[in-house]
């Protein structure tokens, strides 16, 4: 090379040996892996990153769940008298079918899609144990349920507060409602979510998971209804505990410190309301264990 060789690159010419490179940087831990799983599951469930059609169903159902709250607010705004269309403690009873449908639509997206796409192997060969995976999915589903259980209640509460002339006064009177709102939403979401994901994890086929979940929630309502109302014997009153959505009614009422609504199976069965909280937590725990077991044994 002569001195007349002018190139744009500084320094002597070189051939760089790239070859196989190792990653020596920071590796975030297990917790981050679970968080990533959680985030991706939620995104997928609400159709972010997919077509518009995938976004429609969950959002429409949340919209429908808001309707009672909106009606109450509209009435409260238009009618001067203190008319109560729907109480916070009875909200879930009113939208119980919507909750079941919503779970049936969202759970298969959260829990079944990885099996459908056969991407389970990808997850299980990373820094995330099978149990972590199961719990991550459960957390994602619970968060999804919180959207439909918490948002309407908060809307109702805030709306009521804003529609009175005395916002501060309303808060002072009603602040005892806040804890039960969050508490019942949380436990309720956990209960429904754990059952939903446990069922959804059983099959990669969306349609069967949806059908199974909807039947799992609605069939017990009907059966318990028949056993408690129609047959009405001492022994059959216990049937109310087989229906998760009735159990939800029960412990919601307990948390709000109010009696159950008069036309519900909970009221008819006449058990102490704290029993529903115990059953609710027990069922959630059982469903979660089944979920962990399912993901522990499923072939990736």
């Amino acid at each position, binding site marked *: 090379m002569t001195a007349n060789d002018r190139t744009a690159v500084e320094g002597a010419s070189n051939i760089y040996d790239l070859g196989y490179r190792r990653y020596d940087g920071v590796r975030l831990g297990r917790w981050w892996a679970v968080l990533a799983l959680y985030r991706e599951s939620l995104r997928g469930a609400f159709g972010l990153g997919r077509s518009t059609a995938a976004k429609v169903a969950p959002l429409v159902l949340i919209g429908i769940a808001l309707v009672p709250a909106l009606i109450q607010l509209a009435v409260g705004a238009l009618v001067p008298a203190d008319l109560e269309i729907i109480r916070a403690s009875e909200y879930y009873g009113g939208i119980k*079918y919507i909750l079941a*449908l919503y779970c*049936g639509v969202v759970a298969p997206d959260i829990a079944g899609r990885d099996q459908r796409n056969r991407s389970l192997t990808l997850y299980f060969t990373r820094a995330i144990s099978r149990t972590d995976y199961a719990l991550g999915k459960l957390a994602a589903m619970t968060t999804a349920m919180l959207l439909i259980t918490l948002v309407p209640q908060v809307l109702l509460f805030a709306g009521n507060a804003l529609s009175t002339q005395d916002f501060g006064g309303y808060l002072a009177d009603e602040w005892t409602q806040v804890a039960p709102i969050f508490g019942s939403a949380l436990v309720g979401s956990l209960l429904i979510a754990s059952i939903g994901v446990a069922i959804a994890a059983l099959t990669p086929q*969306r*349609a*069967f998971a*949806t*059908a199974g979940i*909807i*039947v799992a929630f*609605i*069939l017990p309502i*009907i*059966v318990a209804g*028949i*056993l408690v109302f*129609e*047959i009405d*014997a001492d*022994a*059959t009153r216990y049937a109310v505990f087989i229906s998760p959505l009735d159990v939800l009614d029960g412990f919601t009422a307990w948390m709000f410190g109010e009696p159950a609504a008069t036309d519900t199976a909970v009221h008819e069965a006449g058990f102490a309301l704290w029993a529903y909280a115990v059953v609710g937590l027990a069922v959630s725990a059982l469903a979660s264990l089944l979920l962990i077991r399912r993901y522990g044994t499923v072939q990736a």
Partner: protein
Amino acid sequence: MNGVILGLTLRLLVRQRRTLLLVILAALPVALALIFRLTGGSMDTNPDFAAGIMAHFIVALVLPLTALVVGTAALGQELEDGTFVYLVAKPLPRWRVVLAKVLAAWIVVAGVVVPSVVLAGVVILGGFQGERLIPAFVVAVLAGSLAYAALFLSLSVRFGRALIIGLAYVFVWEALISQFITGVRFLSVRAYTLGIAEAISDSPSRLLEVSLGATPAVILLALVCVGATAYAIRRLGGYQMSERV
């Protein structure tokens, strides 16, 4: 109709694990009936119970769910896994194929739900004469099975997601909307089925919120059967293999 396809479909439907779950579902009303009797209930203490179980449990829940699972599988399964091509690449007119499938679905659905009606009825009614509940509901379920089977089968020909759409139809449309909006009660297979039952039975219990006469019920039900089957035939006539393998 084609005997070979009928036999094949019956065999495929009965063999599935889902059918076992449906049988368990259909056994629930019978179990409830037994509990009812064991706890001292009878037509004297609770005259509405029999009609209630038949109308609001068997017809409103067991029948449509069974028909949904069986009806969407009868043809939909083959469309989905690609074995349908064996039925289509044959010197067989499509209407024969569809009719055989509808018939097979009908037989399986009725075969599951009718015994449920009969057994639950016998348990609850005991020796009670009158009201003609069992014959009424057997006929109604036979008719309703055909209508639902045809409806869901034709749905599965058009949509891959027929099961979900059918679920929405049963649990949103039939369970909620058509109950509350009287204008559309005529658009519900459940209403036709109950209308037929109500016309035949002699029971004082109200089966339907609003009555639907026998003639309209039968006509509309027949329309559903014929219309759904005809649609399925037409749609399959132009069946094309998807390029996206």
